[in-house]
């Protein structure tokens, strides 16, 4: 790489200068060359000096300035604390408002206290705990009673027997109780409080196990006694769900194996069946949507009845224009295939199903329709759309049990815990990286990203369980990832120190040799001249 002529030219100028002054070896020893003239000696010193002045006063500062590595200060200890879970013990408090308007104030307070005790006795996992709270009495109708921070509200109503029912449209649990089961003011426990506690626990069981699974997979806490079956279910959920992204891109595709149908009422179908779901998911994710129709699409499997193995290869990835990944958002595919194929499983003879979900990818729905139909109506799309909606929730990692509002609120809590852990993890990796590679440059924006990430992590940790936690955790995760994957640092990861020799030596080596040799010669000469002068002075004295 080094331009080879640089060496010769310089050496030539330097050494031909020497040639003109020093004895020519061609002349044998018989004829001793005349001594160098003082002017020639002085001139040579000046030349050597001029090169060295340039090296020392310009070369070295430039070298220092351009090759010192800028390492912004990172709060390494703090980052590692986050990664080790020392900075924040993730604990998700779940506020539950108890509405017991039919009870006396004191009675209600006592009931809540007892129920809280019962819950605390049942709970064995500290990362996730339920807090009961007596809601202020309100004479106004129910609409305004929802406290934004309470995940669930319990409505206690007197009735004939002890029953519990989840409200399918709101995050509410309706409990009826026989009048005599209300605990007297000084009793220590009662059937009703135990019932409430068990009921609540079963409502939040899935979320709790997911959270405890999340936390146990990080080094922070020991696995909280989960049964293998539960762990397996949780792992399945984790493999199905897509990685969290603030925005997802939904692609609705209509594929047919023939020339028809050519149109579909996808617009109204989405508006009618998907939109409501997307709207409630709004606080957690944004969605962008596109649709496409593809004719004469050959599936990867041609057989009439699809077996379980066929399902994996049904998608013709080579030919079907899927996953366009517009922008940076990950794509979720919803594919409606018009054909006469059916899914059959050997164990359930005769039974057929129409759709299947592909983990982290999307859903395929087989829609059979007469060939003559060139249009797919909104009504025909109803079932596929509802299936897609259900699968979308799974793909986003929503828990399976409970009513929709509850599932969504627990999704947002799970996601914030998840993001919190991910961000801490990224910070820890960055800290370890910067410790293990002392020569890696750390640009200022990385330090800024880390600071911002830690700030948001703190807020997220403090407010875990509330709606802002997700927002803060999201920013923290984004910043931490951006800091970790900083472009200028990634390049240096693979640049060991030994490479510097290969960078410096080819060019600087040939240049340095004449420079150093010249300097050594000059210094030698100066020392000799000094000695000689001292000798002369001595001689003079002795005379």
């Amino acid at each position: 790489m080094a331009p080879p002529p640089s060496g010769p030219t310089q050496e030539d100028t330097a050494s031909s200068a020497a040639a003109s002054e020093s004895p020519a070896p061609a002349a044998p020893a018989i004829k001793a060359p005349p001594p160098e003239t003082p002017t020639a000696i002085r001139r040579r010193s000046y030349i050597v000096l001029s090169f060295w002045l340039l090296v020392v006063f310009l070369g070295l500062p430039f070298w220092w300035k351009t090759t010192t590595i800028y390492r912004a200060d990172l709060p390494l200890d703090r980052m590692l604390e986050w990664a080790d879970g020392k900075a924040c013990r993730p604990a998700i408090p779940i506020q539950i408002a108890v509405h017991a308007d039919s009870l006396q104030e004191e009675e209600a307070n006592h009931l809540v206290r007892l129920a809280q005790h019962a819950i605390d006795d049942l709970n064995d996992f500290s990362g996730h705990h339920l807090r009961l709270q007596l809601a202020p009495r309100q004479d106004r109708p129910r609409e305004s009673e929802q406290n934004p921070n309470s995940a669930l509200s319990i409505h206690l109503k007197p009735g004939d027997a002890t029953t519990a029912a989840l409200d399918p449209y709101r995050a509410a649990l309706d409990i009826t109780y026989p009048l005599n089961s209300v605990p007297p003011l000084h009793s220590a426990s009662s059937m009703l409080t135990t019932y409430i506690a068990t009921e609540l626990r079963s409502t939040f069981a899935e979320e709790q196990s997911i959270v405890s699974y999340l936390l146990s997979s990080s080094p922070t806490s020991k696995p909280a006694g989960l049964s293998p079956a539960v762990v397996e279910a949780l792992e399945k959920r984790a493999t199905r769900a897509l990685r969290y992204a603030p925005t997802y891109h939904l692609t609705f595709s209509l594929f047919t194996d023939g020339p028809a149908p050519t149109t579909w009422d996808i617009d109204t179908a989405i508006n009618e069946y998907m939109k409501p779901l997307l709207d409630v998911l709004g606080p957690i994710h944004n969605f962008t949507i596109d649709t496409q129709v593809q004719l004469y699409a050959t599936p990867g499997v041609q057989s009439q009845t699809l077996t379980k193995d066929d399902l994996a290869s049904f998608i013709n990835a080579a030919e079907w224009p899927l996953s366009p990944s517009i922008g940076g958002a990950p794509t979720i595919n919803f594919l409606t295939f018009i054909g006469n194929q059916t899914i059959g499983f050997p164990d359930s003879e005769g039974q057929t199903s129409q759709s299947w979900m592909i983990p982290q990818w999307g859903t395929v729905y087989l829609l059979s329709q007469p060939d003559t139909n060139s249009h797919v109506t909104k009504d025909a799309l109803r079932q596929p759309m509802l299936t897609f909606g259900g699968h979308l929730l799974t793909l986003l990692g929503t828990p399976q049990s409970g009513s929709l509002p509850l599932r969504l609120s627990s999704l947002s809590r799970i996601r914030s815990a998840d993001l919190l852990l991910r961000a801490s993890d990224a910070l820890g990796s960055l800290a370890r990286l910067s410790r293990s590679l002392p020569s890696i440059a750390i640009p200022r924006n990385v330090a800024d990203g880390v600071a911002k990430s830690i700030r948001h992590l703190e807020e997220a940790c403090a407010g875990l369980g509330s709606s802002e936690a997700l927002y803060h955790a999201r920013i923290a995760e984004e910043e931490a990832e951006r800091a970790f994957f900083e472009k200028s640092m990634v390049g240096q990861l693979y640049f060991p120190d030994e490479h510097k020799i290969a960078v410096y030596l080819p060019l600087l080596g040939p240049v340095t040799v004449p420079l150093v040799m010249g300097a050594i010669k000059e210094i030698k000469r100066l020392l000799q001249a000094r000695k000689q002068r001292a000798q002369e002075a001595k001689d003079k004295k002795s005379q």
Partner: protein
Amino acid sequence: MTFRGKAGIYAIAVLLRLVLFFAFPGLPDLLTGRVEISTPVTSFKRLEEGLFLYNHNVWPYDGGVYHQAPLLLPLFSLLPDSKSWPIFTPLLYILIDLLSADALVKIAASGEAGKSRLFTSPRRGKGSTGLVIAAAFLFNPLTIASCVGRTTSVFTNCAILYAIAKAVQGFSFHAMVALSFASYLSMYPVLLLPPLVLLAYDRRASQKTSVLKFSAVNVLVVAGCLSVLLGMSYALTGNSWEFLARTYGIQLTLTDLTPTVGLWWYFFIEMFDSFRSFFLALFWLHLASYVGGLSIRLRTQPLAALAVLLGIFSIFKPYPSISDASLFLGLFSLYTHLLPLMRYTYVASATLMYASFLGPAFYHLWIYAGSGNANFFYAITLVWSLGQSLLVSDLTFAVLRDEWEVERPEMVGKEAKQI
């Protein structure tokens, strides 16, 4: 040297250029596009782009293509439109070439190459006459190609030659102004200041003032001239200093990696990003490091120092072209009396010829035929630089040997080994 002879050579040179310009209408544009002739900082095509923007009241550097000095723009916009009056631009370039040749003739006429104030060469009578030198410059294919390719380095070369001519005539002020123009246009000529000041000092009628005082005055002249020129550019480009980054900044940081005949582009394509700024500084320092040493060593012959420096610059500067080589060869022809002392003239000239024939072929293989890659062209530019550095070092050797033989007359004609 008769006037008739000089006029004849000039007339033939003008005629030849006019024929090339107008008998082969595609030739100027073809040559303008060649990387060997047009570099990002001297290309005529880029100048036209800047000119178009300038004439339409757009900031000329906005396109990111034009990297040349701002004052070239009003000069070229004074010329009639090149589309309707295609004669004027060639005439300007031919005129510049003639001025350069004339400056060379003046330098030759002064005899500075053979006899300076502090040194008289025993071979001074054997040199070429000014006429031959002018002809060698004007009919050098490299000079003709740069003229027809209309690169703006022609202006720089003319300014440098003019500065040297004025310096040997003893007009130090004129020399410094001309050098300021050259530096303003291309930046690197500012490095020629020390030997040029020494040359002007030596050629003055009287040496009453000390060298230091004389240099200080001349440095101030150059600084003043440059600040006036830069100030005018500042006013011209909408009262902003942005143009500095777009002209000299490009040369300092080598932002445009267009291939040239030099050594920088390939090196900085391959360079690790984290070391880029260090090696940029190193390359520039390397370029500048020769100035001090050569000025001191060749103190007795400042003109030789200038010639050798120009040779070094045409090898090692960031965006060299064959036009820089033509300038060096022009000054080289002043030293034909030293040809017997040179050892590698045959090798060097053969290498240069080899490179100039194979260079375009290898570039074609890389860019158009696609059967070669960048290494082909880079290899041939290495050969080109090798040939030039052979010539430069040989000239240095000859100049020094010439001095040495005066010092040690008994060694004339004997073999001297370089150690």
